[in-house]
């Protein structure tokens, strides 16, 4: 519940920031903008960058709507694999996945290739995008978190 509230308020803040950006920026609002939403605009920017990475690297298997391909490539919506433990999710992107495990009660055949060639920032961005798209609402992934998993910190 608490997490959900935080995400909701983050989203609300994003909307506020976006609408503020649209408004003519004549009035001197520097101080209040600087105070709170700085990390929020980081989230929006990360989502935007992540969208580009998604289209280039992920879309061909997981599809434009994130719904995957039935029984072949798993969906990225309505699954704790995406919205749950960030380290596990980062690990899948970096190492790929070829486990015969059910994802939300179904099995998916295709091997997912490892994407260790992506930078920490790209992995963070694309996962932040996925965790905030296709009906998902979850916290951002940071490059620092990716770095820890890449260096074998934890999975």
């Amino acid at each position, binding site marked *: 519940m608490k997490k959900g509230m935080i995400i909701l308020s983050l989203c609300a803040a994003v909307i506020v920031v976006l609408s503020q950006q649209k408004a003519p920026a004549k009035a001197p609002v520097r101080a209040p903008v600087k105070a709170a939403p700085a990390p929020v605009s980081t989230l929006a920017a990360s989502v935007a960058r992540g969208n580009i990475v998604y289209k280039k690297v992920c879309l061909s298997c997981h599809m434009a709507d994130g719904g995957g391909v039935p029984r072949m490539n798993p969906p990225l919506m309505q699954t704790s694999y995406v919205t749950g433990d960030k380290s596990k999710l980062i690990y899948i992107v970096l190492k*790929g996945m070829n486990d015969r495990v059910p994802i939300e009660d179904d099995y998916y055949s295709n091997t*997912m290739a*490892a994407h260790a060639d992506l930078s920490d920032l790209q992995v963070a961005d694309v996962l932040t995008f996925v965790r905030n798209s296709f009906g998902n609402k979850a916290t951002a992934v940071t490059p620092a978190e990716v770095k820890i998993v890449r260096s074998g910190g934890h999975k």
Partner: protein
Amino acid sequence: MNKRLFFLLLLLAGIGAAAQVRPDADNAGLKLPSGFGALRVADNIGRARHIAVTKEGDVFVKLERMKNGGGICWLHDSNGDGKADEIKNFGNFNGTGIFIRNNYLYASSDQEVFRYQLDAGDKVIDPSNPEKIVTGLISRFEHEAKAILLDNNNNLYVNIGAFSNSCQEKDRQLHSMGIKPCPVLDSAGGIWQFRADKPNQTYANGIRYATGLRNVVGMDWNTQVNQLFVMQHGRDQLHDIFPEMYTEKQNADLPAECLYAIKKGDNAGWPYTYYDPFLNKKMLAPEYGGDGKKEGSKEYIDPLVAFPAHLAPNGLLFYTGSQFPARYRNGAFIAFHGSWNRAPEPQEGFYVVFVPFSNGKPSGKWEVFANGFSGKSEIKNPREAEHRPCGLAQGPDGSLYVTDDVKGSVYRIMYKG
């Protein structure tokens, strides 16, 4: 005439008329050539894969996932209206393949082939105790479905799909090169032949009948030329794996889905080559030094028909009936499950095509025969398709049956004239 007898005859005639098999008013949602109609024999039976119809008109469907206590669904129509009104499930395994021959029902899991003895009326005698004919087949994530069929000499053919896209050191990995020789081919990526009546056979008892076939789900025995024909699922992801050599558009359009006539010992070239339907050539796969321009080795067999890429042919049937007009006789029907690897282009397939044949050779261009399964004019994401055609079978009256593994519909296509 005796009045009572007259009314009895009238009643019987009435029953006879009511019990005619007629296409559904909407042809079960299908678009068909003029003169054809379709009805939905059953719906929501599960993930309906391959299908076999008995000489009495009963239908067996193999389910990819067990439903109502069984992985084989038996459909019976007791009042003669063409709609299944009695349904029983049996068989404690998931799978794809099903085939009837010599009073036996054969069915496959992803590792095994079983058979059930049928009685004189083609009913399964002992649904709980099938005989295990083949065991221990490779099933490793990708292309695990085992299609099966028998020839006329009591040989059983089993497709064992490659557990790999293109035999890279790391499957589907950017720039990962191919392993040479490809070790997958020892136990998969081909068609294996077993005896149809010998229990508990393993690889050691089988013969690798044909190799270099990445994944075959649709296959049939052409009785006109007494030969095995198969539809291969071509490789995926040329652009994803080698973006410098192939554009996204080329990724969607390459390689062809190929129809092959198979002789014992044939090699269709996977993973070393793929077939380019625009150049009409076997091309060297990029994992093995190709670049989209270098031709592959000529030692591999050529396809008889090259279909558009990624359409996923899951059913192949040579039509031997006489219900359909003469041009359909001995021709091939192919059920295309529909693509996924054409994104971001729209997906393709989700239909049944027809190829006219004469003496085992195509005698004309392929054409879409039955369309409308997906329920949409364009499919971007495969999961949007409402139905996806998978298995094909011919009924005793010459009707063509088609399964759908999304909602579990069984269609019956008839010629009305």
